[in-house]
């Protein structure tokens, strides 16, 4: 296939690798010119097999195998890289469908990028078709603590020994019940949202320290929604929030379709997939 891979480098690259941001059908040079890539540098297009890969220059002293492994363990570097990569993907997504690459997809040169476009052309084209006119929306659900009972118990604080133990046990039981109610509500919310969405995925709830939320996350869903169905989706979410007071729902998006491009072992568009 490499004979059909016509490599077009719009900016001359020094002897550096290519960090892949994502694959699109086409992109305006003006759009690319307005995007800052890794380390604030320019991004460029690598065209092959009728597709366009958008890449940043990746000097090997920073993005070679060993430095990259080391850098990924550096939280400051990682945050900067993640934000830069995401910013590029997000800008592309505003123009049309994009298949985002996972963080740290690095080729040693444009030829390698072109070859992988050619090799996976059918799959990439099918994915781009599936994403056209659709956006990914995130819905997170957080447990709402049973404020009433907890506060009542807190008010009677001051007991010692068995009184404390009894109170603590009652608290724990109440917490468990809340959690069960909230988890059933999360199931119901996810099922309902999947009715309106083209596809839905349930990801592992974020650790509380990752979410930064004061209460546990019970739903971490991603939904691929047709633009035409978006208002139905948000209306539904609003009414689900009213129906399930035990869960606080939060909508984020639109995101590039990160959750709907990976070739997981499970078939595409699986509803209710969880990891």
């Amino acid at each position: 296939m490499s004979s059909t891979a016509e490599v077009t480098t719009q900016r001359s690259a020094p002897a550096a690798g290519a960090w892949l941001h994502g694959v699109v059908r086409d992109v305006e040079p003006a759009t690319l010119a307005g995007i800052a890539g890794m380390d604030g540098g320019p991004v460029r297009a690598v065209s092959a097999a009728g597709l366009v890969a958008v890449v940043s220059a990746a000097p090997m002293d920073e993005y070679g195998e060993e430095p990259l492994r080391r850098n990924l363990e550096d939280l400051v570097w990682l945050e900067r890289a993640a934000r830069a990569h995401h910013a590029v993907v997000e800008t592309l997504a505003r123009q049309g469908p994009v298949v985002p690459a996972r963080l740290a997809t690095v080729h040693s040169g444009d030829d390698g990028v072109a070859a992988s476009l050619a090799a996976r052309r059918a799959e990439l084209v099918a994915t781009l078709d599936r994403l056209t006119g659709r956006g990914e929306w995130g819905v997170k659900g957080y447990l709402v603590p049973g404020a009433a009972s907890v506060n009542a118990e807190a008010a009677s604080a001051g007991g010692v020994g068995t009184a404390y133990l009894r109170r603590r046990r009652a608290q724990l039981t109440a917490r468990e019940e809340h959690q069960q109610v909230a988890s059933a509500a999360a199931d119901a919310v996810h099922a309902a949202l999947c009715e309106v969405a083209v596809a839905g995925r349930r990801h592992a709830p974020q650790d509380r320290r990752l979410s930064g939320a004061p209460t546990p996350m019970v739903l971490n869903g991603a939904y691929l929604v047709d633009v035409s169905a978006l208002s139905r989706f948000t209306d539904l979410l609003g009414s689900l929030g009213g129906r399930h007071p035990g869960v606080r729902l939060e909508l984020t998006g639109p995101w590039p379709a990160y959750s709907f491009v990976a070739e997981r072992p499970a078939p595409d568009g699986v509803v209710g997939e969880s990891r």
Partner: protein
Amino acid sequence: MTAGQPPSVVQNSGQVLPAGHEPANLGDILERVLDRGIVIAGDIRVSLLDIELLTLKLRLVIASVDTARQIGIDWWEHDPWLSSRARPPVELEPREPAQVEVERRSRARRRGAEVEEWDEFDG
């Protein structure tokens, strides 16, 4: 994506997010760019196994760094949902990992010891 511009964050409670919220939460971004997205084999390989290990570590570590930065290092101590510290020091359940971690860190800081952050989470 050609989606319109509805509010980027809505909450059913009608509450507004706290001021100073990042445009997109770092945790949300990391979760997406590390865990999702298409895997195309580059010829510079950082194996997926490494990435997944990294993600696991991140779930445990970067988050606490980030939230500690945003919320203040002792936020969980004031939350009755996470801690029973305001109460007598009786432990009926394993303590919250966050709490254990913070205590470990402050101990380590007192000692002035180098702490191998990553390895401690690997078990």
